[in-house]
């Protein structure tokens, strides 16, 4: 018996890797403009502008406002009207909001940004919404559940989707990991799919500190609102690459992948995404 214990300890040693913190000398870093732009049915355009930060430079990462972009000239046009976006907090920059051009199904929008003597642009459209047939809870544990949806995909390839959700009381809608998919595998089919509860934007740390057993679940008593959006193919490719980028850190088997940006312009990252949402609400009841 003792022999077996030795061997199992040994096997464990074999497959447990050794980790240590090291100093890395990273390749040179070029600052890039990061554009997070969207327009949604019934809403004006929102554009968040920042610049990339070096991982191990002599830069203090504890003050994110240093990387916010102030004083950029941002416009969104629907072909006939042009809306000049205004900074929500002119002292900080970062958030630029539109007011006159409001998202409408079927329209195409052009985004232009002038900053530091350079120009950037992107185009997106708002497609027809495709609503979920229903949403429901599927209990993983007695009082905990993921949120599931039933969707009938219209025939014809090229439908792309993105899922957002929030609980009553949450500040904003948030998208879970791999929240975007297309209909390559499911064209014209009826099927079910589920997502975990995502962290609120900027609240990753809080989310990580939740107890393991309930992290990612909805509880009995939660009211969940799902915003299910149709998006364009290029926007879908962008979100797919966004999640691949997240998954590639620390994975020795994944190829490093940068984002498939829809923003045109030198040294820039990001996309302009048109969302066509439909909403569903679910109150999580005790397991029958």
């Amino acid at each position: 018996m003792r022999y077996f214990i030795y061997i199992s300890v040994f096997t464990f040693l074999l497959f447990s890797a050794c980790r240590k913190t090291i100093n890395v000398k990273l390749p040179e870093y070029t600052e890039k403009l990061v554009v997070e732009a969207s327009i949604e049915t019934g809403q004006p355009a929102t554009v968040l502008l920042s610049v990339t930060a070096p991982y191990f430079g002599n830069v203090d990462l504890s003050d994110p406002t240093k990387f916010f972009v102030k004083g950029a000239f941002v416009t969104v046009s629907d072909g006939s009207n042009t809306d000049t976006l205004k900074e929500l907090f002119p002292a900080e920059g970062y958030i630029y909001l539109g007011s006159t051009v409001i998202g409408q199904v079927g329209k195409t929008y052009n985004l232009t940004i002038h900053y530091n003597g350079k120009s950037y642009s992107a185009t997106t459209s708002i497609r027809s919404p495709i609503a979920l047939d229903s949403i429901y809870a599927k209990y993983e544990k007695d009082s905990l559940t993921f949120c599931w949806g039933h969707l009938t995909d219209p025939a014809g390839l090229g439908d792309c989707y993105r899922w957002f959700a929030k609980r009553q009381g949450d500040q904003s809608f948030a998208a879970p990991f791999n929240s975007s998919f297309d209909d390559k595998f499911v064209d014209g089919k009826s099927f079910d799919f589920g997502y975990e509860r995502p962290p609120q934007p900027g609240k990753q740390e809080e989310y990580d500190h939740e107890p393991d057993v309930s992290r990612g679940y909805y509880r009995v008593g939660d009211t969940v609102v799902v915003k299910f959006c149709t998006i364009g193919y290029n926007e879908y490719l962008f979100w797919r690459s966004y999640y691949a980028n997240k998954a590639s850190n620390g994975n020795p088997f994944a190829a490093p992948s940068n984002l498939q940006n829809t923003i045109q312009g030198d040294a820039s990252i990001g996309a302009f995404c048109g969302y066509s949402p439909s909403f569903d609400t679910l109150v999580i009841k005790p397991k029958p």
Partner: protein
Amino acid sequence: MKSNACRFGIAGEMIDFTIDAAVNLIKSTTNLLLLSFLKNLRVIFIFSLLSGFTAMAQNFTISGYVKDSRNGESAIGANVYVKELMKGASTNVYGFYSLTLPAGTYTLQCSYVGFQTFSKVIELNKNLSEQISLLPEETTLNEVEVVSEKTDQNVQSTQMSSVQLDVAQIKKLPAFMGEVDILKTIQLIPGVKSAGDGNTGFYVRGGGPDQNLILLDEATIYNASHLMGFFSIFNGDAIKNVNLIKGGMPSQYGGRLSSVLDVSMKEGNSQKFQVDGGIGIIASRLTIQGPIKKDKASFIISARRTYADVIAKPFMKHTDFAGTSYYFYDLNAKLNYQINDKNRLFLSAYFGRDIFKYNNDGFTAKIPWGNATACLRWNHLFNAKLFSNLSVVYSKYDFSFTAAQDNFELTLFSGIKDWNVKYDVNYFPNTRHNVKVGVNYIFHTFTPSNVSAKQGEVKFDIGRVIRLYSHDAAIYVSDDWEVTDRIKVNAGLRFGYFAQVGPFTRYKKNDFGKTIDTVVYAPGKKVADYNGLEPRLSFRYSLSRTLSLKASYTRNFQYIHLASISSVSLPTDVWMPCTELIKPQIGNQYAFGVFKNFNHDMFESSVEVYYKDMKNQIDYKEGAEPQDNVFDNPDNAFTYGKGWAYGAEFFLKKRTGKFTGWIGYTLSWTWRQFDAINYGKKYLAKYDRRHDASVVITYDHNKKWNFGLIWVYGTGNRGTLPSALFAYEGSVSNDYGLRNSYKFPDYHRLDLSVTYTPDREKQIEKKRARITRRYERRGKDMSNINLPKWWAKNYQSSWTLSIFNAYNRYNPYFIYFDTSGDFLSGTFTVKAKQVSLFPVLPTITWNFKF
């Protein structure tokens, strides 16, 4: 090479200039040597015809097989020569030799490392058949006595850039986890780089892992690794000989750009029944071999299986790993039958599988993968000068992955299957020529990754199973020709033809990935075809018996590609044939070398320089997903580029004596350039390694004890790490820097081993003494002392202690950034972490034989 103009200022330019000059020197010297040879070809040809003609009138042939006297195994590459003329040949892969000489009385000699030199006086006045049986060299033999007046292969053959290893030698070296592994030994040779810690993948002179032709008894092995590459599929007990060719491949080998690894299985002991086995820390082995009919037919069966899963099971019962199990096994079998003096049959087979199972909380996964090969060979001797071989080979590699949760099930599978027929004729007209002519035809069936998925009764539309079919044919000829006593040439030509045929559906895509057209090809209809001429030329010029210069030029076509999403060789990698989008890989290699033996051939040394270019390399486009080929073709996700590599290799080997082993050093550069990667700029390949060194030593102290040591050092791999971060939707994403712009920390490691073989005779003596004493005490009749049956057997055992990574170096396997906190709330922190796989690992293995 202008593009080398460089960023490091004047010093950098000097380095680049020197490299450019050196590369040009390699090319021009090689060309010059080959050119001067071609210019004189006419003169030489007439001369040799005349000499051949004049000699023809009174020539006779002596031919036969060279064998190991202990077990009847044929000796590959043994030197057979006549002392008086210093003329000879080496045995082919079946142990056959043929010498055609003027009539006379000669001393026929045969030498082979590890064996006593065979010597016999022969009267050559008619065609003779001489079977040579070699006696093993005594280990106690005085070092100075190992002198044979033979022509040495290393210096005298035209083949350069090649290494032949004997498995008996490999077994004395430290082994990772106690598993003797020929691929890991291959990685210790200059010009061959390992993929990383404990990995069996190898990269030859800047070539990719798919550019190595790995043959096990003529059957192509498509994935030579177990357990993500930690072990190779070659079970040391079933393997006899390993030959690696890094450059100047003879024309009978084709289909790969960078190297040929020719592995021969043992034939099975034709003298007596024998059982070998071993119990190691992770696996056990058992080999049974013996004669079916003495000197006529023999067999060998060898099996190996890991048992970590069996041992670990009770301990994982109540843990998260309860449903996890992993194991692999190998089976090798070979039969050989000598029908008569002129005909011989070999049937060899290999079957190996890795099986990984996972079952937890309703989620199950099963991932089996492996190779299967079978090969039937027929050696036929038309006459003493004309040897032929017909091979029919089947080889297959497949991978599948099935995952299920609730009522959802997903299966992913891929693979490759070959039917292969090869016919070779080997003609030995006289001692100056060795002519080989052959044809080869392969029918490939490729299954690039396919997916099937269902949820309850709803089957997802994954499209039809995609299979790609192709014909792969070649014809080749070569002559190893001793033009004068100083000049020897191996001139060869290979012509290859490759065609992809239907059934096949091509999905044409626009820039947005939408299908704009589909083209359907009927079964057997040609989709695309390619062909090419591959000249091979090797040249040797002897300055003396122990010193020669060699040059070679090789052009290779490779019609199949391995598409790998990660830089580690994984079972999920997909083999793809040439299609109308994927062009054949084309490689040109120029090599030049100086070869010198010292101290009566006790030491072998060489310095080689090489330059290699590779066209039509493939890689995935940035951000492409490999399994994504629904209503799509896998090649739509590829991008095309080129590669080039150059370097110098230094090798010093001590072949005989108590201390044996080698020291190797390589200085090299490896570049890649793809339109759609790294903004089209050239970049260093992941396995670019400026410095690579290895020291390999075995020391046979006496019959009881022997020791082994391996030390390796290599410049760190290249990798791509994020250079900057940014917040997007409130969480941190990475902005990666230029491709492979980060150099990992250097790799180095020391392995040690000790083998203890108890002296059987002494043990028997002791036992006999004990029994004698007992008989004495009891006053029994002493004239008839019988040992128990077990002791009478010819039984042998040994213990090997291997220490992997003896000084516990933390070599980098990968590096990741460990982040915590939120960027937007200013609590974000990041640390770079290095993950190393193996600390110091001692293992003990018990081997037995009877």
